[in-house]
């Protein structure tokens, strides 16, 4: 049983949460032109590491808010909890984020720039 540290409520059993899968998948903006294969990288292709994984979780049976975890998929150890819309701060998680193939994809380059994540915008944010 995973004990998940909700940043708003505290540590709770995994049965209170839903997992949202890989974090930091930026949605390409509607008016950009990318190929079907490049769009498939956004829509279907996924990081699936044996090791540190950055993923989204939602406290569905509690505060119902989203947050991010850096979790090891072998030991299930949670390295870091950080807010939705932000990037991780721990060294290991930052490396994982920076080295991901997704950073070089056309889909990510066609999304809102990272610095705009925290600010509300006319187009709605990406995160």
């Amino acid at each position, binding site marked *: 049983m995973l004990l998940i540290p909700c940043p708003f409520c505290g540590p709770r059993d995994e049965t209170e949460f839903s997992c949202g899968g890989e974090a930091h998948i930026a949605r390409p903006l509607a008016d950009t032109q990318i190929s079907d294969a490049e769009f498939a990288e956004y829509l279907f*292709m996924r990081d699936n590491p044996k090791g540190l994984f950055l993923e989204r979780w939602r406290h569905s049976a509690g505060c119902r808010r989203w947050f991010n975890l850096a979790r090891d998929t072998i030991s299930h150890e949670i390295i870091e909890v950080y807010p939705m819309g932000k990037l991780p701060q721990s060294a290991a998680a930052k490396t994982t984020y920076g080295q991901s193939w997704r950073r070089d994809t056309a889909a990510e380059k066609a999304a809102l720039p990272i610095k705009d994540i925290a600010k509300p915008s006319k187009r709605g944010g990406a995160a």
Partner: protein
Amino acid sequence: MAQDQPDRGQRGLPGGTPRYSAFAIAKQALNYHQGWQRAWRAPEPKAEYDVVIIGGGGHGLATAYYLAAVHGITNIAVVEKGWIGGGNTGRNTTIIRSNYLWDESAAIYEHSMKLWEGMSQDLNFNVMFSQRGVLTIAHSEHELREMSRRVHAIRLNGIDSDILEPDEIKAFVPIINIDQSIRYPVMGGFLQRRGGTARHDAVAWGYARAADDLGVDIIQNCEVTGLRRQGRRITGIETNRGFIKTRKVGCVVAGHSSVIAAMAGIRLPIASRPLQALVSEPIKPVLDTVIMSNAVHMYISQSDKGEMVLGAGVDKYNSYAQRGSFPVPEHMLSAAVELFPVLSRLRMLRHWGGIVDTCPDASPIISKTDIDGLYFDCGWGTGGFKATPGSGHVFADLIANDRPNKIAAPYALDRFSTGLLIDEHGAAGVAH
């Protein structure tokens, strides 16, 4: 039905491996069973092979066997990081059926079913294939309608599927509770009589022995650490036992597919999830068929040892730990006990997990890649065991001919770009 097979008489397998038979058991008994030979060799890896199969599970060993038996390619190695059949092949709940919705699925699972029907004879190895039927229960009006549509689609593809009413289900499965007031009442079901179970370990061992007999090297405790390329062409694999040169690599590693894919810069849509299963203490025979229920995420059968074999849905987060959390089997068992009250006093004897490679459309990936000579057979998720022979057979064809046949073609990786998904979420007894 079993296809006509050449009479092997007292000859062994084609490569000379001695034949398994009742006569052999009697003969060996006279020598206190000291004369049995190794079922497969344990060779050191050669420097080079024509084809290397990464992954020594059922699918990988079947691929190697069919490459040798059907395509005459015998200079092959199967490299397995642990022991053969130690991954999902040894961890599943052994269900075999071909009653899927879409034409593409019917093609591959029925192709597999026909190979199951001749497997013990083809491999001279008793895989204990038992066509005891697979019955899927409908628990609501919606499920009844969906089931009806499904049965018609299945039958239009020439595959057997019968609809049963609750009283017919009770006659077929005496221990089931058809009280209409329970939380998930039995409102009907559809039955594939040709479906059933097989002994999962025996499938790995049977293919291993038959492949070894034809000259395939099975190399255990050999973990792939890298894929070497020259430009867009595979040149070999790096392993913990050295570099092995080859021009063709077939990757059949289920939950670890993304790990190997990343070594070649290949992107996959796969998420590796825990899938749990458990067996009870052995009891006298009370269930002689397989029951599946989508609504309660439960499937159950009884092994020949008398153990009730139960499985559930995946845990809903990524994991390579080969274990999941208790709420999943607990939720499944509470529904199982409601459907089968006799289970309520049973003690559960063993509980374990595997790593299933789930795909967004709950259908597998059988595909070439952007790298010449690199092929993937993965994404079977929670439903790979039943496809073992069919998958191996068509994957061997893909590797041998460098193009997919009619059965494999719809499962190419580029369907995620074209949008031609094959959505079988409703067919598996569990949600992905």
